């Protein structure tokens, strides 16, 4: 919209929202038999999002499975929850900064 940096940030925030949704889904299904943890490969999806593709979910490897076939690790999901929220906070502050820069340019223009 404004410049390449802002539209990259917008994509980044989109991807973080999708990831947060998957984390919410993993936490909600922590006791569902047979449910498998879902996540997105962040780097790979960020690159493919540049080409306009919707992000795909995959099952992260190496998670121990419980006897009922469920492999949600609440510790991992809690960490992801906090991490995503912080990353999103950083990105939204950066967007705010970008808008402030443009606004100050406009305001300076008025005075001249």
């Amino acid at each position, binding site marked *: 919209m404004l410049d390449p940096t802002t539209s990259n940030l917008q994509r980044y*925030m989109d991807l973080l929202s999708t990831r947060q949704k998957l984390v919410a889904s993993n936490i909600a299904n922590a006791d569902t038999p047979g449910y498998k943890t879902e996540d997105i490969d962040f780097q790979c999806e960020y690159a493919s999002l540049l080409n306009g593709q919707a992000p795909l979910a995959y099952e992260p490897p190496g998670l121990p499975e419980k006897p009922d076939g469920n492999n949600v690790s609440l510790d991992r999901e809690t960490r992801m929850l906090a991490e995503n929220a912080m990353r999103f906070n950083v990105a939204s502050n950066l967007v705010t900064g970008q808008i402030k820069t443009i606004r100050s340019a406009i305001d300076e223009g008025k005075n001249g």
Partner: protein
Amino acid sequence: MSLLSALQISASGMAAQRTRAEMLVENMANADTTRTPEGGPYKRKDVVFSSELQTSPFSAVFQHEAGQGVRIASVAQDTGPPELRYLPGHPDADANGYVAFPRLNPAEEMVDLLNASRSYEGNVAAITAVKDMITNSVSILKS
């Protein structure tokens, strides 16, 4: 918007865990119930969770969205034989003086209840985190 459907997913998790806690409390309250409308002693109940795709019909038209909520697929009832206790004076005693009591272990129910409570807290934490993210993106508007 995927953040709003994340709220919906966590809410489905909270509702499912609350129903589970209600069942567990019902089991504990009826630990010594020997009469039920169906006849015989109370039978232990447990919920069966299943995951379910949460999409609003509107967004589903445009894209396939990942992320699943949870719902209660069914309520399972214990089918095992009741526990027989020798209480000859009891009004529900059979000819040999045995009374059929529900087969359930209060310790097991308590552990499950703790588990349900922790899972509920997990969903609440997810809602709080997503709410903060929405607040953050709304604050961009104020800049």
